[in-house]
């Protein structure tokens, strides 16, 4: 194993949202709206929206939102990314674990599943989530309007009523 630095997480505040914006602008091909940035500051998602620090430098972000559809409560993973030089250091895994554990422990409402979209050109990302217990449950055709390819896999992980993964 290579030497590992120290990682930590921080909740989002109006003061560090600028760092989130900066990360999103270099990590993702999508420009997120103002509403996105307002929603991730809401208290009910504090456990699911974090900045990831490595050796005290902000290097990544994970943001989710809660959804309640058809009697089912889901955690939708909107963004998760780590700056290129800091990948392959299990930061992504640690971030996923953090929000998974938080989802499993969430009581009101009890969360049944986590799911996310992955652009069909991003096989690496798909493999990553599959390694962490996600499965493909479908394809959303034309999910992306402005970037190509326009389709996205839907990856999901369901929680049993028992302890977290």
């Amino acid at each position: 194993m290579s030497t590992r630095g120290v990682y930590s997480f921080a909740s989002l505040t109006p003061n560090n949202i600028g760092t989130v914006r900066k990360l999103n602008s270099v990590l993702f091909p999508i420009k997120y709206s103002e509403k996105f940035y307002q929603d991730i500051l809401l208290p009910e998602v504090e456990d699911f929206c974090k900045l990831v620090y490595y050796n005290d430098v902000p290097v990544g972000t994970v943001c989710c939102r809660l959804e309640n559809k058809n009697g089912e409560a889901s955690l939708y993973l909107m963004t998760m990314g780590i700056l290129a030089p800091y990948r392959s250091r299990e930061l992504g895994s640690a971030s996923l674990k953090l929000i998974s554990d938080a989802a499993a422990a969430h009581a009101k409402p009890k969360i049944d599943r986590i799911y996310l979209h992955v652009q069909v050109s991003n096989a690496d990302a798909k493999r990553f989530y599959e390694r962490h217990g996600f499965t493909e449950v479908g394809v959303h055709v034309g999910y992306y309007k402005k970037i190509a390819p326009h389709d996205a896999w839907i990856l999901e992980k369901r929680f049993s009523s028992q302890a977290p993964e």
Partner: protein
Amino acid sequence: MSDIPAKRALPSKESALFKELLTLYETRQLKKGLKTADQILKKFPEHGETTCMKGLVLAHMGRREEGVDLVRKGVRFDLTSHICWHVYGLIHKGEKNYEEALKCYKQALKYDKENLNILRDAAQLETQLRIYDGLVETRHTLLRIRPAMRQHWVALAVAYHLNGNLTEAKKVLEHYESTLKNIPDYDVEHSETMLYHVRLLEDLGEFTEALAMLDVNAKDRVIVDKTSIMEIRARLLAKLGSDEAEHAWRVLVEHNPDCYQYYEGYISNLGLSLDVSDASAPKTLTILEEFATQLPKATAPRRLALTLASGDHFTELVTPYMLSGLKKGIPSLFSDMKGLYTDESKQQIIEKVADDARNQFSAEPSSSTSKDAEPTSYLWTLYFIAQHHSYLGRHAKAIEILDLALSHTPTLPELHMFKGRVLKRAGDLFGGARCLEDARSLDGQDRFLNTKSAKYRLRAGMVDEASALFGLFTKKDAPSPGADLEEMQSLLYLVEAADAYNRNGNLGLALKKYMAIKKVFDEIEDDQYDFHGYSLRKFTVNIYLNLLSWEDRLRSHPAYIKAALSASAIFVALHDNPSLGTGATSGELTSAQKKAKQKAKKAAEKLKEDAKKATHQTNTNDDKGLEPPAKDDDPDGSKLLQCTDPLERAAKLLNPLATLAESKIEVWIATYDVAVRRKKYLQASKALMRAVAIDAEHPELHIRRIEFRQTVSALPETPQVSGSLLTESLNKLLPEEVSAEAFNSQYLQRHSTSAPAILAVAKVMLKLQTPREQVDDTVFTVFGTEVPLDIKSSLSILSFLRSSKSPREDEFRTRCGEKFELSTVFKSAEELEKLRQVALAPPQFDAVSSDKTEDVMP
């Protein structure tokens, strides 16, 4: 008291009321006090003492003007009453008129020689005013009246000490100590007194006695301050040249391995030096390396070793030092190394170490199981290398490295901050402000980033926008962010804001801010007042004496020097051209200035309303103290601009610098400028001679040599008193057989590769009415390959061309723009306006244009 004048004596009822009035005042029951005073005055309206007391009470209640008037009346009613003079003294003290206050107190003492209160206050005033001989007498009296108070003994010793009479001080202390009985164990007051006695002996040069006293009292645990014991011990042993000194210093170093002073003490005790050029450097280096091995966690010995080592040995030492810092990610590593850059060979070694580190940290891991470097090590190494290049003036290279680092980790505020700094150094002030805003947007709760970003806006001339940023952290109920920062005595803010206004041509506000800086220093000087009483009460004499000598050197602070020099330059300009002071900014106010004016009007009106409210609130018991409330009656500085005595004010500002900053040539130049205009020609010539002693070839001095000769020869008659002296010094400054033109061209020949010198020559040429073309041609020689031209000099030259309406101003400006590629300060006004808008736009989160705006599906 002997004969009480008839007017003063009160019948028993009123006399009792008066005693009650005094008590009520002391317990600050102001409403009742007022009533009581009025009761007495109903029957005895001209009773001086009651009138004074009533005035005092009113002042405390906020009705200051009324109160002070009454006090004056009261004194006139009864000129021989110690109470009246005492009250008058208190009023003056409240206004910080210490000299006037002392006069009143002396009067009061005439009529009540042994009044403890008055004596004590008088002693404090004498200390504040540094009237040490008077202080000795006052302390003597106090001791005579109350020898049982321990404080009085020590106070007298301190008074003798301050007055320079250390032997008497010692006698007083010895006598005092012989009277002490039953001192409790571990009594800090006594410990401090003994430490003072030791210091006194040391100051007298009686090192053996001092050491003996220290050792005896340390052993008996009388002195409880262990660190002081160790420090003084080491110092005394060193002064005595004792063998034990080395051990004593070693103990100190082990006690605090990161205290540079202890290493200095250890080294100098051995007769060695921390100066790398000294022959003993290798020996010192060995000692430092031993310390480094012995104290592995300390950075001081390792850093000091870097100063002393050279060549290969230096490389051996600096490599692990830097690598450890880069891996740890210490942001200030470069600032630490900067001090070594005076040595060019070390500069190059450091560059190589940093480059090697960069290669090492960015190398691909040879296999997935190898230890690959942390990406943060690479990041901080890039940061270091960028700082290195910018420090050496290679700004474009620094930007290149920073952009590399930014694409690696764009979320590190330090990278954005430093990019801003490089742009600023390269002359792109708007770019700098833009980068600092990018840095600030990453962390909104970091006040350091906030202040830096606001400062960069001030440097770019965006005063209002800077204020908006400051306002994010200042008190919300302050009249303005600037007002809060001024109250908090933020010298950083005041200097930058003043300079920004000055550069923008807003002389009134600039002057106001420079005066605010002066006021801060006046306040710091006043702050010591309370310690004259407090420190003696607590017997903490040593630190008190240090405070007094620190206060004596207070105005040697760079902020004061800056403010004094800049303000006096403005005052001189106002004297030369009074029209600058009357709506000079081309008559029209910018929208920002209009806003400021409206705000100031509102603030002034609010103040008036508050004052009115205050007079209606007089029936409260709140003690408003004796200080007059601060009021701002000159919101845009126009009163300052139109003052009738600009030169006198400038002289007052410069006065302390003659002793406290005498090695700065700028001080003497400024002193000359003021003196010559006040027609104090001898003072002016003396100032120039002081300047000559510091740097005879300085360009500003050169200009004034010629100017001075012109001024004096234009005088209708030589001043009688100093005539011959004046002629003599003039001759030394500019020999009479040499013409001004010849002198000027000789100077140019000597300094043809110095841009500031060329500018000085051009200025003189213009004054001597040389043809414009020749002047401009001389100016343009600064573009010669031999002339190292920097942005600061270029801006000065540009300003000269502008103010002298040269036809080649734009040409010069354009050429500078080409020479300084990264700069924007040489662009035209329209271009600058565009850049300003860019700088103020909200942070761009690049990479994706807005037509790619997707959103997360609902």
